[in-house]
Structures are given as C-alpha cells and as structure tokens.
C-alpha cells in the first residue's frame, strides 16, 4: 500500500472524508488549524459541506443539526474551543446523536498556551458537559493510528448512537509520519428509524430532543443509556501492552506521551531494567482488565502524562489501589523527554 507523509491534522481530515463524513463545521484555533484548512480544500470536492462557523458553539450546534438528519458530521478544535463546545456535546449525548469531535489538545487552563498537552483527560473522560453521560474517547499515538481511529470513531458513534472523541495533542497534530489509507469499507447503518430528515408523509414525525420534564422519564433515559455504556465497557476497550509480561515496573501513558515512554522503556531494557508499558487506546471506556493484566507481575506502577496527573486516577481505580502508582509529568506544553522518564524509572528502584 502506498505510503505518504502527512501531518496528523491532515490525516484526521482525510480519514474522516474516507469514512463517509459529509460535513465539517469548525472554527480556527492552533494547533488544529490544518485540519479545517484541509477540509476547506477538499470537502466540497468530495460532495460534502465545509463551513467555518462564527464560534465553537455554533460549530458544535451545526454538527447537532446535521447529525440529527442522519449525516456523518464532525467538528474539531483545541482545548479552549472544546470547553465552548461542551454545551452542545451534552445535548448531542442527551439526544443520542452520533458524531465525531477532535480535540488537538494544548496547554491550559484558560487561554493557556499552544504547545502539546494532555490536560483535558478529565474533561474528555469524566465531564465534557453537564449531566450523566459519556463519550467514546480514542487516544491515537501515531499519525497512522489517527487515521484508523477516526474511521473506528465514526463507526462506533453510529453503532451506539453517541458522540465519539479523538483525544490528540499538538504534537500528534503537527507531526508528519508515513501513513497509508486502507480501503475503507464504510459501515453506514440505517438511521431511518430516528433521523429527522423529513417524514415524506410516510411515517410519524421524528423528534430529536434531550428535554424530559418528568424526573422518572428523564431517569429512565439516563439509566437506559448507562445500560448501553455497560455493554461498551465490556466490548470496546483497547490497549497496547508492551514488554509487560515480566515487568517489575509498568509505565502507563497514552497518546504522544506513550512514544516518549516507549523510548525510555527501550533504553531501560538495554540497561537491564525490567520495565514495560501499558498504553490505553480507548480512554473511555478505560481498559481496566488490560491494565490489571499489564500490571499483574509488577510491584510498582508509574503514570506519565502531559498534565499534573489525571489518568493516574483511573489506573488506581482499575488496580483497586492494590499497588503503588507513582506519577511523572510535565505540563503547560512541555513535552517530557525519554531521559527524564528513564531517570524516574530508576528512581523508583527499577534496577532490581
């Protein structure tokens, strides 16, 4: 298969179109801008819609409108913009609409910076908006994985009728790597049982809605949605386990940070340290069984993140706090180096 060098942001856009995405609504923000630019250049040629919205808020609501009619819709932004979209994301989740949202994270809080960060982990996995709900959250670690995960995100969003997010960061968005686009078999499910695209006088009207004024009725919709989440937790977790079988220390990392950690792990192995890596590919659902397996023989666990430590909570919960979980991270846009991670591994007694 032919490989090309592509920026992560552009690869996300190309993959989305190949996955049958028919419309993109966005607003400029660094470091995801190339994604929107690529869409602007190519979406119309592919028979789709590109529109630069007046705000992130408008963009996510345009996605809500398009998704309501059964069309595959996407928006992308970076951290501050995702906060603005959170209102619409909550409505989309509450209306059981599928869509894909890209977050090419940068440092925060506030206006923060524009360099890579993973400090939106909690936002993406715990509370992207008000109310009880989840998004599917995928964490790619390479440009090729960005391609593969966008396709999967669209398919799973449709399958479960819920929003899906690609949680990337400025490093992945900006970097170029070889990438190939496999022939994508677009699984376009039949949405005619719910889509609000005009009833043609052939059926009762469809209503896309998240308002339930009777508490018992609202509770039922939420409980039903959580029953669906249970199925997802059971079926859709995904993770990479790297050299964990005999590892005394397991280093957990996702996304771009996992690349740094892998370099550190390889270096540590060369020095005879028994260390491995656990990398969740889905952040929600969090791969609990996989992290338990990865850490089965470890005495210590380390979480490395581009934040002050957010995923570490999920690791501790998954391990029932049965093992010590330490943290190393850089934040504000600083990318940890393999040397720093190696030093931390050694400090944890990784010479035994």
């Amino acid at each position: 298969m032919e490989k090309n060098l592509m920026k992560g942001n552009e690869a996300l856009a190309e993959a989305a179109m190949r996955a049958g995405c028919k419309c993109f609504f966005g607003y400029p923000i660094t470091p995801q801008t190339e994604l929107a630019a690529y869409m602007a250049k190519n979406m119309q040629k592919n028979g789709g819609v590109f529109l630069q919205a007046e705000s992130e808020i408008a963009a996510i609501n345009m996605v809500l409108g398009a998704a309501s009619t059964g069309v595959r819709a996407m928006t992308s932004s970076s951290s501050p913009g995702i906060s603005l979209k959170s209102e619409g994301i909550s409505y989309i989740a509450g209306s059981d609409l599928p869509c894909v949202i890209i977050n090419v994270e940068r440092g925060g809080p506030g206006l923060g910076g524009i360099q890579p960060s993973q400090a939106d982990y909690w936002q993406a996995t715990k509370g992207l908006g008000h109310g009880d709900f989840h998004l599917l959250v995928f964490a790619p670690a390479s440009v090729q994985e960005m391609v593969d995960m966008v396709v999967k995100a669209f398919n799973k969003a449709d399958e479960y009728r819920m929003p899906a997010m690609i949680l990337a960061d400025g490093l992945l968005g900006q970097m170029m790597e070889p990438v190939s686009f496999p022939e994508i078999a677009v699984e376009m499910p039949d949405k005619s049982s719910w889509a609000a695209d005009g009833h043609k006088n052939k059926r009762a009207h469809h209503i896309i809605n998240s308002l339930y004024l009777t508490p018992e009725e609202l509770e039922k919709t939420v409980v039903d949605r959580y029953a669906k989440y249970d199925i997802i937790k059971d079926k859709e977790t995904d993770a990479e386990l790297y050299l964990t079988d005999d590892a005394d220390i397991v280093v957990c990392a996702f996304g771009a940070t996992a690349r740094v950690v892998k370099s550190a792990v390889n270096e540590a192995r060369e020095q005879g340290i028994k260390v491995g890596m656990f990398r969740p590919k889905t952040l929600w659902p969090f791969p609990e069984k996989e992290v338990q397996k990865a850490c089965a023989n470890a005495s210590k666990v380390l979480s490395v993140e581009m934040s002050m430590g957010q995923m570490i909570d999920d690791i501790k919960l998954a391990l029932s706090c049965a093992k010590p979980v330490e943290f190393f991270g850089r934040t504000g846009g600083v990318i940890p180096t393999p040397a720093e991670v190696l030093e931390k591994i050694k400090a944890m007694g990784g010479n035994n």
Partner: protein
Amino acid sequence: MAVVFERPKALCDVPLHYCPGCTHGIVHRLVAEVIDEMGIEGDTVGICPVGCSVMAYNYFNCDMIEAPHGRAPAVATGVKRTNPDKFVFTYQGDGDLAAIGTAETVHAATRGENIVVIFINNTIYGMTGGQMAPTTIPGQVTQTTPYGRDPQLAGYPVRVSEMLATLTGTALAQRVAVDSVPHIREAKNAIRKAFENQRDKKGFSLVEVLSTCPTNWGLTPLKALERLREEMIPYYPLGVYKDITAEEGNK
C-alpha cells in the same frame, strides 16, 4: 355539513401547554397553515428553542429538533446545509434569539442561510417566570427590573428586524403582530412569504411577531392585547424592513 374551521394537519392533535391568552397558539397555527397550504410537511424540519415554545416539537407534525438555548439558527444551518432540499424553520423567543443566541442569529442571517426564522417578541422571558428580555421596553417592570427597565442600568432594547435588515444576507425582515384579525392575516402572509423565499432559495427570512404574555405581564388576555397595541407597536413599528423580492420587483 361544510367544515369551515379545522386544525391544520401540520399541527399535532394534542393540547398545547401555553397559558390562557398567550399568542403562541396563533403563531403555531399560522406556521402550520402555511406548511399545509404549501404541502411541504413531509419535507420540513423545525427547530425549537429554549423558552416557552421549547416543547413545540410535540405540536408540529413535521420532523422536529430541540436546540440548545439560542443555537437554533446554528442547528438549522447544519440541517439545511446537509439537506438543501428540505424546508427548515426555527421558532424562537426574544431571549433565545436576541440575547443568548445573538451571534447565531446574526451570522446565520449574514451568511444568507436559506432558512425561515419565526421570532416571537413578547418583551419578556416567559418560561423562567418573567425576567427582563433584550426586547423589554424602557420602564417595563419585570422580575429583574422591579423598578422598570432603566436603560442607564440595563441598556436599551434590541430592534431585531431593523438590525437584521442591515445585513446583505437577509432576504426578508418583517415585523408583524397577532393582536387583531387584520394583523393576524398580515402575519400569515409574511410567514408564507418567508417559506416561499426558502423554496425560491432567496436566503434568510425573519418574521418578527409581536406577541403577548398575559401571565408574566400580569394582565388579562384582553388587556395584554391592548398593551401590545399601545406600548409595543409604537416602540417596535410594524412593517417590512427588508424584502429583496420587492426590491427585485422594483428594478
């Protein structure tokens, strides 16, 4: 026996939740009559706001979408851009359209989105119990302007039709009222024109409807209609503020 009056088909056969004397029912009916007359129910998607008409999705028989507060024009944009052959309308109140949703309203208009916006202006937030709206008239008493709206404190009202008429993308900006039979007829004609504009791909059509809120105004339905005539119409003059089809006709 000849039927002289019946429920429009585009309205569901359910009781409306609106207060006695509220004019939402009239405006719903006018929209539904136009949809019936144009035979477009099967190809229409309506967008509800947040506010008193939040549950309008239960009242219109076409497909309906409930939007976040103020975002109906953005939702409508998403629907229309991906389904250009469908008729798309929003139904919004003054707080929704002219306060929290001002950006969405102005930008949908300036882009010339080929949609219909029905704008209910009753100078008050009804659903939340009678707070100041962006259209509340100076001196008007509301829950959050208990001494009357003081422009020095609360600023001035927004005249939406006039404002949107300045935008190139706006095809129609017309203010009507539903306080009397002649005005109701005029209102229906305006709504009809707005939907025809969409059919003819003319762009953004806004019909601002001066309406009453007897409950939150603290007036009887009849007194409320009087207030509409005596206080609102002088502040918000009825008329066509922009109509590109008339301009085209004059050329």
